[in-house]
C-alpha cells in the first residue's frame, strides 16, 4: 500500500502545478480562517450601525470550543482547490497516456486507481491537520480565559470534515476518469453543486425526503452551518450519523464507479 502511495507521490512531487495548487490551498485557508476577527472589525468600522448593534468582541468566533466547528465549516469551501488538483493528477495520466504505460509496466488497474485514492486520502488528512493547527493556534490567541474542559470538545467535526473532503476528492477522481479531459472535468466539478441544486429545487415539492441523499448535499450536511448559534442560540452541534452513512456510501460508490470504468476501458 505504501508502495503504491510512493508511486503516485513521486509523480506529484516533481510537478510544479501540484505545489502551486497546494500552496494556494493552504495559503487561502490559512489567511482566510485566521483573519475572521479582522474582518469583523472592518465591518464594524465601515458600517456604523453594525458595531452598535453587535458587540463584535462578544461574538466568540475563535473561542474554544466554537472555533473547531467554525473553522471546519469555513475551510470546507476551499476543498474545490484540492478537487482540481485531483482532477489534474488523473487527467494528466490520460493526456500523457502514462496510465497506459503504468499498466504495461506492471500495475494492475486496481493498483493504479488505488494509488490515486491513497493520495486523496493523504490530501484530506493534510487538510484536516492544517485546519486543526490553525484552529488550535487561533483558539489560544482569542479565547479570553482558557477552560481546558472546552478546549477539546466538539472535535468530532474533524473526522466529519475528513469524510467531507475525501468524498469530494473521490467524486473529482471519478469525474476525471469518466471525462478524461482536464478542462471539461474542472468545469463539471465547479458546476456540480449548481447542477445538483437545480435538480433539488425541482424535486423539492414532490420528494423532499430524497434530498438528503444527494451527494453534494450529503457532504455539506456533515458539517452544519455554525453561525446560527450567534442569532438563535441553538444549532446542531453534533455530527449526524445519517449524513455520515450517506456520505460514506457515496465515497465508496464514487471509487467503485471509477474502478468499473477503468476495468472496462481500453487504454
Amino acid at each position, binding site marked *: 500500500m505504501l*508502495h503504491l502511495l510512493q508511486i503516485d507521490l*513521486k*509523480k506529484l512531487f*516533481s510537478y510544479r502545478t501540484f505545489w502551486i495548487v497546494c500552496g494556494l490551498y493552504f495559503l487561502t485557508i490559512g489567511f482566510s480562517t485566521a483573519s475572521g476577527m479582522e474582518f469583523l472589525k472592518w465591518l464594524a468600522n465601515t458600517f456604523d450601525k453594525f458595531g452598535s448593534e453587535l458587540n463584535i468582541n462578544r461574538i466568540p468566533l475563535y473561542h474554544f470550543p466554537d472555533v473547531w466547528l467554525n473553522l471546519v465549516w469555513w475551510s470546507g469551501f476551499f476543498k474545490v482547490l484540492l478537487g482540481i488538483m485531483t482532477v489534474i493528477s488523473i487527467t494528466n495520466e490520460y493526456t*500523457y497516456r502514462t496510465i497506459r504505460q503504468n*499498466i504495461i*509496466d506492471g500495475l494492475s488497474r486496481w493498483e493504479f486507481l488505488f494509488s490515486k485514492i491513497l493520495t486523496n486520502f493523504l490530501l484530506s488528512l493534510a487538510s484536516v491537520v492544517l485546519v486543526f493547527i490553525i484552529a488550535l493556534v487561533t483558539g489560544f490567541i482569542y479565547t479570553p480565559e482558557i477552560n481546558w474542559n472546552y478546549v477539546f470538545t466538539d472535535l468530532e467535526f474533524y473526522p466529519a470534515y475528513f469524510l467531507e473532503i475525501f468524498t469530494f476528492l473521490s467524486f473529482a477522481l471519478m469525474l476525471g476518469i469518466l471525462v478524461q479531459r482536464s478542462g471539461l472535468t474542472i468545469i463539471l466539478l465547479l458546476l456540480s453543486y449548481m447542477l445538483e441544486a437545480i435538480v433539488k429545487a425541482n424535486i423539492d415539492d414532490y420528494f423532499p425526503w430524497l434530498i438528503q441523499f444527494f451527494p453534494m448535499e450529503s457532504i455539506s450536511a456533515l458539517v452544519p452551518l455554525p453561525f446560527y448559534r450567534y442569532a438563535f442560540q441553538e444549532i446542531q452541534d453534533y455530527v449526524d450519523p445519517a449524513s455520515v452513512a450517506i456520505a460514506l456510501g457515496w465515497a465508496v460508490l464514487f471509487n467503485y464507479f471509477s474502478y468499473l470504468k477503468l476495468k472496462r476501458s*481500453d*487504454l
Partner: protein
Amino acid sequence: METVLSIKGLTKNFGRLRAVNNISLEVKAGQVFGMLGPNGSGKTTTLGMLMGVINPTSGEYSWFGRPPDHEVRKKIGAVLEHPIFYPYLSGQKNLELNAKIKECSTQNISNVLELVELKDRRDDKYKTYSLGMKQRLAIASALLNEPTVLILDEPTNGLDPMGIAEIRELIKKIAANGKTIILASHLLDEVQKVCTHFVVLKRGNMVHCGPVNDASKGSETVEVNAEVENLSEVLMKFSGTESVNRENGFFQVTLRDDFRGKDLNKFLFDQGIIANHLVTKKKSLEKMFLEILSETN
C-alpha cells in the same frame, strides 16, 4: 524450447470494426519474433491485449504457460507505439518511477542509460529530449528490470538513418544475450535483418507465420550486366531463366527452381560473354511480404 507466449483465438472488436481476428501463435524462448503488417493491420492492438491495456473480445493468451496477470508484466519490457513518459520529469526520475512500478532495483538505471547513451542528459526533463532520445529512453526503460522478454513496437519510428542503425545494433546486442524479442514493424528490411521468425497480419487476420529463413528460400534472382548489346536476348536463351527485367541499368534475371547463379554464370561464359556485374540476390522479405499480401487479396 520453452514456450514464452501462447495465443489462442485472440479477437478484438472496436464497435463494428474487427481489429484483430482469431489470432493464434506461439513464441519460443530465444526467438526474435517479427510482427509485420501494413499500418492498421492490428499489430499494436494485439500487443496491447498481450500487455493488459486492451481487453480482448474473445480468445486467450498465456505468458510462460501461466494465465496473465499484472505480476507477469513486470518481467516483460515493453514499448508500445511511441515512448510514453511524464514530460515534466527528468529521464532519471522517469526511470526511477518505472523501477518502482516494476518493483526492481534502481541500481540498473545507470547501466541502461549508458547502454542507450543517454547518461549525459539523464537530469534533463523528458520534454526537452529529441525523438531519437525519447525512443532510446523507452528502450532503456524496457530493459530496466533485465526482462527475459522484450516487446518493441516500431522502435525505429521517426528516427534518422543513424538512429535506426543504432537501435538495430542495440536489438541485435540484446538478442545475442538470449532474450526473446517480439518486434512489430512495417519496415521489412529491419525485420529481415534482426528477426528469426515472423508473422504477417493483414486487416486483423494472420496470413503467414514462420521462420525468416524459409522466406528467403525458393527461386533466386540474379542481377547481371555485361558489355554486350543483345544481353537481354542471350539471357532469355538460358534454360533456367524464368523472366528478365531491366532495372537500374542491370538485368534482373529470375531463375527457375533448381537453378543457381553459378549456372547462369557458366552459361554466359560458355556463350563467350564475361559479366562485369553478377550478384545473386536472395528473395527479400519485402518481396515475400508483398506476395503474401497480394495472395490473400
